[in-house]
């Protein structure tokens, strides 16, 4: 799904938010801001796009309580700030915006969380991306290793060609925050699939064992819950190069959520799921089956784990039979296991035995 960055359109959409407030005051009513409900109860599967999107439920934030009135005022300050950045051709991080708000008087943010949430609110209402707003996240993107060649626009405005196997060190290619076409071009590749890995330890293990070359694949380190740019670049490679995405995570309820955000879209970013989610991504492991089949060292599920699993049972993203089975099985055995528990059978077990077996089942090895 290609996107076009049009500053005028962004501004016009932001003005709609401001107009809603202004018009209500003119009518003698409390000003309001209307936005989709952002909970799992309001996400549904969009058949056309193949991802989960927000449904029709809307909530109205109106200025009848001090908290939400302040929120509206902040939104106005943010709109003004974005317009200024668009005019000046600058961008800022969310954290910088939080500090800039110090000079907004009554509209200043109480915490960074508030400013992050408001940026998301505006994305949701305007259906723009925060990249359109010239706002950058703080977190860095993923690391990537494999025979993939990319062109990136550097600070001097020159396109650099980078091969993520030959032009990088052991830590790989660092994915920037903006991976849209104006910044990143996908040039060429010689891999059969992409493998997304949850932990740095496992990523480094596969790199050291030369797994990317042996199995001709690109390795991506997710760093836990993946940043937007990580999901976006996987999505682009999946779409533009038609590469399968295989996801290799710990075997616990939180990893299931990471997978759901990669494949179906995250609840928080369901407004832009079509840009971020890769519906064809498949979950390799660790599965509840694996814990039993490979007799992996495991930990008892905590109370929080059990709560999370139960919540997943009613999450529309996990509604299919395979997931229901996996979640129920994990609840039944009451255990979870880490990726690195495979080291029980030696350092090479994961690359020599586990992954080939699992990829074989998927028809990729």
């Amino acid at each position, binding site marked *: 799904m290609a996107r076009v960055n049009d500053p005028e359109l962004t501004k016009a959409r932001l003005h709609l938010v401001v107009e809603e407030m*202004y018009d209500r005051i003119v009518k*003698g*009513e*409390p000003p309001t801001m209307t936005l989709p409900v952002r909970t799992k109860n309001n996400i549904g599967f969009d058949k056309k796009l193949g991802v989960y999107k927000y449904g029709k439920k809307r909530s109205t934030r109106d*200025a009848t309580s001090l908290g939400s009135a302040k929120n509206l*005022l902040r939104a106005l300050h943010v*709109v003004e700030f974005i317009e200024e950045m668009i005019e000046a051709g600058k961008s800022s991080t969310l954290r910088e915006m939080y500090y800039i708000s110090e000079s907004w*008087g*009554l509209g200043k943010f109480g915490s960074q969380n508030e400013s992050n949430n408001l940026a998301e609110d505006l994305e949701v209402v305007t259906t723009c991306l925060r990249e359109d707003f010239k706002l950058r996240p703080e977190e860095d993107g993923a690391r990537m290793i494999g025979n993939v060649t990319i062109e990136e626009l550097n600070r001097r405005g020159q396109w650099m060609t980078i091969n993520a196997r030959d032009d990088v060190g052991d830590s790989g290619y660092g994915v920037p925050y903006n991976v849209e076409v104006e910044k990143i071009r996908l040039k060429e590749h010689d891999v059969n699939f992409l493998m997304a890995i949850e932990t740095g330890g496992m990523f480094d293990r596969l790199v050291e064992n030369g797994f990317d070359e042996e199995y001709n694949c690109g390795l991506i380190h997710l760093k836990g819950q993946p940043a937007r740019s990580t999901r976006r670049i996987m999505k682009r490679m999946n779409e533009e190069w038609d590469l399968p995405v295989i996801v290799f995570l710990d075997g616990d309820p939180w990893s299931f959520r990471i997978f759901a955000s990669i494949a179906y879209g995250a609840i928080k970013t369901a407004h832009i799921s079509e840009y971020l989610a890769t519906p064809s991504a498949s979950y390799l492991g660790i599965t509840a089956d694996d814990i039993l089949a490979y007799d992996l060292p495991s930990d008892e599920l905590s109370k929080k784990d059990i709560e999370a699993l139960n919540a997943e049972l009613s999450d529309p993203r996990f509604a299919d039979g395979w997931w229901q089975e996996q979640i129920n099985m994990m609840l039944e055995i009451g255990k979870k296991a880490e990726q690195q528990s495979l080291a029980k059978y030696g350092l090479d077990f994961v690359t020599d035995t586990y992954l080939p077996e699992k990829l074989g089942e998927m028809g990729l090895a």
Partner: protein
Amino acid sequence: MVIRVAGIADKMAKNQKQIAISEFFEKNKHFLGFDSLQRSIITAVKEAVDNSLDACEEARILPDIRVKISKIDSKKDILELQTEDNGPGIPQKSIEKVFGQLLFGSRFHAIRQSRGQQGIGITGVVMYSQLTTGKPTHVLSKIANDDTAVSVNIGLDTRKNKAVKSDQTRIIWENDDLTRKEHGLRVTTRMKAKYQRGRQSVFQYLRMTSIVNPHADIMFTDPDGETYHWPRVTERLPSKVDAIKPHPHGIELGQLQRMCRESSDSRMTVFLRQNFSGVSMRAAKELCEAAELEITVKPKSLKPDDVRALLEAFQGERVVNGKAIKLLSPPTNCLSPIEEMLIKKGLSKTIDSKFVSTMTRAPTVSHGNPFQVEVGLIFGEGMAADKHVEVLRFANRVPLMYQQGGCLLTKAIESVDWRQYGLEQAGGKGVPKGPAAILVHLASTNVQFTSEAKEALSDNEFVFEETRRAMLEMGRGLRKHLEKKKKMAKTREKFELINDILPAIAEKSASILERPVPDLAGSITKIMSAVICNETTTWNKETKQVDVSITLFNYTSRARSYSLLVNWPEKSGGEMVGNERGGRKEAMGIWGWKIETLEPGEKAVVEYSLSKLEKGDWTETEVFFRGSQDVIGATKLDEKMLVEIRKQEEVLNQSDAPSEESGESSEDSEEGVAYEPGLVEGSSGQTTLFGGEY
């Protein structure tokens, strides 16, 4: 308890030669208060300070008390204690007796509320000092009539149990500013003791003492040289208390035996009427009849069985015509409560907080002993929210610092379900948690303790019930305060919203869209959609008055009209000044104004000041309204409540008169009907409708 200690003193006097002081001390140190090094210094301070307060009170002097503790030898735990007061001083000839004899004094036959009930006296300190350091205690005393002060060392001859004076001279006693000290006493003594901090410490003892003695100015310097000052908050001395005679209901066999033995009366009726309170001529005759005693018999000649019979008649076990003998209640003017306003001041000076509620219950009687319960509750940000509330217990103005759990007063606090009043309490039992302190003071002619340590009050259903009732009343006041605070916070938020945030939204949205700033009136009415009352009660430093301002805003779309009413401390002597709106008195302590019709968006302001009050006396004004639409920040007036207040007022006015008469006639005990027993009992007239402020 007094009797028991006196008994020991008697015994000591008889067996002077056999019992050495050290032995006496060793055997009884737990109830003398010298059982640990930590406690010894507290006991010593307590004896000295109690004496000073009692002496000042008797001499009608506002006490200035200075306490200083210094380390002399850390290895051997030797401390020096110096206490100084501005009391009447002790005449030279009496010094030996006061410091060198156990329990010397006249208070043992008199029944009244006094601090000294609770200790062995300053002699104990002299003894302890001598026994642990071998050193005498230095006394400097100046009475007003002498030009110079006596300086003398007091030791004890441990074999003869006698005070030994040495180095006696007369000197000129000068204050720090080189003026001459008019009168006062300074005691300097060394002892083996350990200074500690915390809940059981000299600091805490003095802090608590200052709360219940708001008329005292207390300064304390600890061993680290740190000085603490609790200033005097009132110039009013505690009212002078009269001694009363024992009441037949409260007497024990031993005491009765001694009274009979020591009596020189010629006949029983005279003896009964002159030595006991509450006994009329008729009752005296009936008591003799019940005890099968001739009224002409000499009390001195009673046999043990006769005394026992008399006691049984006292206690209603022996009857006449099938009825127990009717006795009058003992008088209650022998009690000296601290009084609500002063407790409030005392608490406020040691604990910085917003909400203080205090209450003095009417005096009442249990087993022939008059008693009176006073409580105070202070709540606010200054205190820890996650800890148990601080319990401050007092008996006759003396702090109780040990055995909190076993004390009747604590049990009464624990019996209240504080959760409904806004404090945390596991299972609705035990001492509650929260940023609060609870004070309980029992004033009584006969304070009963669980043990000789005199740190916990023993169970007594009447005292328990009085304390519990007072606690419930405090609790209701607290709940009201918290509810009001919550409401006020909400109202403040709304005002911030319409005064600051909304105009900013209008301006910013207009500037982004490059359109004119819209009018806000419509939005404001929709957002508030209420009538709001805003009250401020503040102390005005310059005028020394409490300024009260009440604003009523109509933020609805209709015209509204109301009457506003407020409570104010009329009873405590406050005067309303600068009340330009006029209005009228609706009841005792209740003032009302009729407010003109308010159009949508309009407001009305009521302003006045309260004079003749001191800072902290009045910090919150309760606003009531008459009118149909609800008012945020004010309470709808319950007309029944107003009627109730007026009724109470009448009762109080009526009850004031006879109690004054009775005060005068108490001297001549001819009729002995000086006290109306029904008056003090069950006087629920104290239950206030405004959360314990009255």
